[in-house]
């Protein structure tokens, strides 16, 4: 980069008079490469969630396309109880509340409560995954028994995979917050992590509606 040599003196040249033809010293220094504008990570998380939600939407669209072509949905010999789905939904709701507690505590710079809330959220996440495992275990049908079974495992499994990722993220964030990495003004990683977790909870509500509510609606 020979040309860079020429740049050295111009950096100190005073800005030109207004109205004079623009010449570069009045130019602006680009912001240093390591600094990201606020909320860039959060925006990235949002866009990733949009893509991920399209995966879910496509699966749900496929669910309804297959359901509409079936004579009975779910097949007559299949009964899914109400107990397990409601236990999951309640646990998910509690986890959503405790994740929000972490964010509120962060806004007040209460590091201790952030840590506690994140660990509690992670625990509730693991509990949810555990009940989902029971839902697989006690379903009484497999992936290949009928199309409803395929979607049952696919959609609940989709939520479970997100849950596992979210729990790992929450534990990392708990560690970072206990190490005082975040402040009330700067906690984009925490925001992003909690955002992803809440999105995961949103996936559950969608899956619950589709797999358990609409399986009872016969068209």
């Amino acid at each position: 980069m020979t040309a860079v040599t020429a740049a050295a003196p111009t950096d100190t040249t005073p800005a030109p008079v207004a109205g004079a033809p623009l010449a570069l010293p009045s130019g602006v220094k680009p912001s240093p490469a390591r600094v990201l504008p606020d909320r860039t990570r959060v925006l990235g998380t949002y866009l990733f969630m949009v893509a991920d939600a399209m995966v879910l939407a496509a699966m749900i669209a496929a669910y309804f396309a297959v359901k509409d072509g079936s004579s009975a949905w779910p097949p007559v010999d299949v009964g899914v109880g109400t107990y397990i789905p409601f236990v999951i939904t309640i646990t998910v709701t509690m986890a959503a509340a405790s994740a929000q507690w972490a964010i509120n505590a962060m806004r007040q710079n209460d590091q201790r409560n952030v840590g506690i809330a994140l660990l509690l959220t992670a625990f509730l996440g693991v509990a949810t995954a555990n009940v989902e495992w029971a839902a697989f275990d006690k379903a009484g049908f497999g992936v290949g028994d009928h199309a409803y079974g395929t979607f049952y495992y696919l959609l609940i499994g989709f939520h479970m995979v997100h849950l596992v990722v979210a729990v790992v993220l929450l534990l990392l964030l708990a560690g970072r917050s206990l190490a005082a990495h975040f402040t009330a003004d700067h906690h984009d990683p925490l925001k992003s992590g909690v955002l992803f977790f809440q999105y995961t909870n949103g996936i559950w509500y969608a899956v619950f509606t589709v797999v358990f509510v609409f399986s009872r609606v016969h068209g």
Partner: protein
Amino acid sequence: MTITDASPGTDTPADPSGSPGEPVEIDQGSTAGTDHKVIGTLFIAASLLFLLVGGALAAMMRSQLSAPDMTFVGENTYRQLFTMHGVVMVFLFLLPLWLGLVTALVPLQIGATRMAFPRVHALSLWLFVGGAALVAAAPLVSDAVGGWTLSDPLPVGPEFTGEGVDLLILGLIVVAVSAITVAVNVLVTVLQLRAPGLTMARIPLFTWSATVSAAVMLLALPVLVAGLLMLFIDRHYGGLVFTGFTGSRGGNPVLWPRMFWFAVYPLLWALLLPALGAVSDIVPVFSRRRLFSHHRAVPAIAAIGVLSFAGWGSEVASLRRARPLFALGVLLILVPVASLILNWLATAAKARKSDDKAFKEGMQSLPMLHALGAVTLLGVGLAGELVAGIDAGGQSHRNYWGVATQHTLFFGAAFVGAVAALYFWAPKLWGRHLSEKLGRLQFAALVGGMHLAFLPMFVLGIQDMSRHTGTFTKSDNFGPANLVASVGGGILILGVLLLILNLLVSVVAGRGEAAGSDPWGGHTLEWSTTSPPPADNFRVLPEVRSETPLLDLDQSERTF
């Protein structure tokens, strides 16, 4: 480097060997492994490698079809050829070519020092390489048939147990995820890291088209991922989404083509969009004036992105009742494309009136020649798509008319637009001009070969030759058009080889003419830094007061 001493002609070419100048602080976050220009270049290199693979497959198919009753390859081999040719060309060539060009150029065009997430960008590259390797390994493991849409037939059931199809499905999932991560990265970069003063309405049209293209990919590719995932579950865990239809237990056999085309029809437009954006940036520079109407081009490009979701059903035979709706979708999308073309032509026409000599020089430069070549292919392709659109879901999608349209529009125009971009931005990205002599020869072979190869396919479409025909007899009368297409295909491949040779000689071997920071008299921010730019792109940025910040700087030196 400042703009004042960067005006055309006065500037010393950057010395690629480097010499001690002002100490350059290289940020840890933008060293070579995460430098968007390096990653972009590697994406481009990978895509050209797969262009050779896809081209070789096409060469074998064109040899088989060059005359009646050929026995160059068997029927099963031919099915694998067209399957892999389609998959490789769309997902392993055109997709990474744009992922590379876009990520290499967009931060430069918006005055950013980096991509928003440089390490995610690096991850995308290596995901792509891994996924592409899986796809490329597929036909080596077992027969990969079914066409590039995986729907003729759907590879599920006892006769499709080969692991090659698994590799194909998993590889495509990984490639799609890679493209999605790039799309997120591009969108966040454009939304967050623009230079001061560079409002969204002022960003260069290539960047804008890349942004729209990224948004389309962000919404379309996940659907492909979901479809492929369910296909994999159907194949491996006895899932019943796409297979069966036995009363209440089975799946929906017409679902797969709908999911595939819902994702891939917009994807094809998303892969053409950056070409339209590149031409929109190139035409004004060589016409030595601003684009005829920037504020009409911006919504036109956005409209192409939105409307690309309206035409997918035209490719699906089973959607008979919705045909008029999708036909309307296809017809509507042609309107903004036509408006863009008129915009370019108006720009060039205005230039011709004012100064004949400068006009001639500009029109004959290689980037501009390729831009015009892309326009000819666009014209033919749009005409083809017009007919295919009216015939939504009909015969023209199953015979060579559809093949001809897709090749002219989504391969021809998109690829030639990318080549124009390569000639235009190679001096910026790599500090070297591509060879002029080789370039002219390559232009003639590439664009001429494309027209010679694809125009006869329209004839074959009228003769109703099925798109998957692997052999034909004399009485079919397909001979003459196929022979011309095969000769054209040969010339086209020569053009591809010349392009790669040109890149190897001029850039890789460094024998191209060294480029100054602003060799073309560019309008946009990337031309205000050195060629090639430093790791963090800019030492200083000009003030941005319009969509052509560099024109605002040296207005006195140019005529408008």
